[in-house]
């Protein structure tokens, strides 16, 4: 069953001149209960905007133009801000990109977790809160006694673990993580990955992973959504995305991704750069960079075409080959 469903989400940002730029257009996806979905794409493709949109945490100049965000059947875009606050952290919690650098340097890790617990009325007394903070730290593999330390005494990997502990403070059902392993070393990335997988099993979390790292998604996620230029390019089970991608962008992206176990395969790059939001191509957003483009691609926005019941791709060529 879907725990979170996003329907036709479109988000705009207003520029300084008051011109609206469509950063996300018509995005649809489902996060299954206990499942994991990876939202992948290059920088500027709108993946973080989708995440901020569904949390209703867009910056001031951003606004949701249309769509629905259904959490257990309730549309989050229709409820009041006070209710929404209760949803964040308790139902859906998030780990932002670079959050580990946003820890307060002059306070202990423990006190920062306690703060989160108290703001959300999770625990009553101070000692109880501290104990819970310790449990949370142990859960992510940090000894509770180290909660008394300050962020500068932690390594990058430990800070990221502490941030994850904090996100789990209110026992959320959904954890949304934006680039949780970026800027960490490979071995530490693997440790965080292992942690996320373990927590997902133990706490029955549903995981929404926003990242540019296809490898990470292949390791963790059941489903993958590939975004390009603010639109969904392809969405499918991860085995289908990695073994039989149908969208030319997904295909190219995979070829551009180096595989350490096959250093002889030539690396392909995608010529050009992603579209600018103020100059979006009229047809398919990927058309200017696409190696298979046809006349129709420049004229009409491709509809989402079902390859099978769990695989959608927005490309005019789908279903026409061979």
């Amino acid at each position, binding site marked *: 069953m879907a725990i979170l469903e996003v329907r036709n989400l479109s988000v705009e940002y207003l520029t300084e001149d008051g011109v609206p730029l469509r950063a996300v257009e018509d995005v649809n996806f489902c996060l299954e209960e206990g499942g994991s979905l990876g939202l992948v794409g290059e920088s500027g493709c709108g993946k973080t905007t989708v995440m901020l949109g569904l949390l209703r945490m867009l910056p001031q100049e951003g606004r949701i133009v249309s769509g629905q965000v259904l959490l257990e059947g309730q549309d989050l875009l229709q409820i009041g801000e006070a209710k929404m606050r209760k949803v964040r952290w308790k139902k859906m919690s998030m780990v932002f990109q670079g959050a580990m650098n946003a820890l307060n340097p002059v306070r202990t890790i423990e006190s920062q977790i306690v703060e989160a617990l108290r703001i959300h009325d999770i625990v009553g007394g101070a000692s109880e809160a501290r104990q819970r903070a310790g449990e949370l730290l142990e859960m992510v593999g940090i000894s509770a006694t180290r909660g008394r330390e300050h962020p500068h005494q932690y390594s990058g990997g430990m800070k990221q673990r502490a941030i994850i502990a904090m996100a789990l403070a209110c026992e959320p059902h959904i954890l949304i993580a934006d680039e949780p392993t970026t800027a960490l070393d490979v*071995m530490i990335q693997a440790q965080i990955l292992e942690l996320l997988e373990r927590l997902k099993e133990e706490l029955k979390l549903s995981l929404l992973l926003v990242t540019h790292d296809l490898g990470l998604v292949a390791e963790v996620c059941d489903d993958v959504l590939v975004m390009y230029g603010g639109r969904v390019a392809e969405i499918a089970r991860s085995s289908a995305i990695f073994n039989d991608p149908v969208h030319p962008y997904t295909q190219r992206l995979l070829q551009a991704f180096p595989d350490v176990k096959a*250093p002889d395969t030539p690396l392909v*790059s995608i010529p050009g750069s992603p579209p600018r939001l103020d100059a979006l191509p009229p047809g398919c957003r990927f058309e200017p960079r696409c190696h298979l483009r046809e006349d129709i691609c420049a004229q009409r926005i491709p509809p989402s075409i079902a390859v099978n019941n769990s695989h959608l791709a927005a490309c005019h060529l789908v279903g026409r080959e061979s």
Partner: protein
Amino acid sequence: METQPILQVQDLYKYFPLPRDILRYLARKPARYVKAVDGVHFTVSKGEILALVGESGSGKTTVGMNVLGLQKPTRGRITFAGYNVAEWAEGLGPSLGVERLENSGIDLARMSRRERIMALRERALMIFQDPYESLNVRQKVYEIVAEPLVIHRITQSREELEELVRSALETCGLVPAEHFWHRYPTELSGGQRQRVAIAGALVLNPTLIVADEPVSMLDVSIRAEILSLLLSIRQEQGVTILYTTHDLATAGYFTDRMAVMYLGRIVELGPTRDVLLSPLHPYTKALISVIPTPNPAQRNKRVILHGEIPNPTDVPQGCRFHPRCPIATDDCLKLDPQLRELTPKHEVACIHA
């Protein structure tokens, strides 16, 4: 490819002293050091691309800095184009030019200190990691690329300057150059910025480039472009490249040899293909196993090392990798393994390999 070594790093040590606190001072304990590079030895042939891979704290960037003469080694010798880099950069001593390569066209003994440093900087330079930080946002692309030529007084006339800037930009795929050179870095994409940074290095026609994580800030879809650009520069101009990175996968695509560093030492060194496909050191094996591959079928074969690289102030006794090593034995605590050639040209520092 020529096999003449253009760069030799012999027994390189680089220790950074830690500030001595008052208690240690009163107790007359010796000063402590961060042993960033702790005995590194390798050579690079002309036109070769060597990858120096390792996690942060492994010392790979420090090696790069010492190679360029930006830092002075604590001990050891770096020879570039026949000269000791430390002396070259510092302009020290009369021992210069002893091993001078033929036709290198430099006579250091006759140069002033400034001239020597200029001569070194012209031949060996660095491409930085982050093109969003490394370019001056108040300079136009033309000024960025022309500046090294002006500083080194390479050109005689404005036309010549323009020609060299144009050809550097176009070599780096910014075609036509006129289309780009009046722009500011902020008007360019990440990939284009890194091309500008590379053009700014290339314009001097260097012998050696130290590329420090040149693609880690770029999107996957354009990484390949920048790496192929570096490859083609090597092919056309015979530039030697030292590629420092933590990313074994990109290194696999375009480097000839690979040196894996751990805690200030090279633990494995060999042809890139051999290192990646048949790694010998347990650290290399673990590193390769945890790199996420875009193939869900290969899940769950990871060898995750727990903990992190130890503090380089207190290097473990014996093999420096033993506290995290999955196959460590008692001997590993006693013996400090040195690199030895196990298969042709493939060296490893592990007693169990």
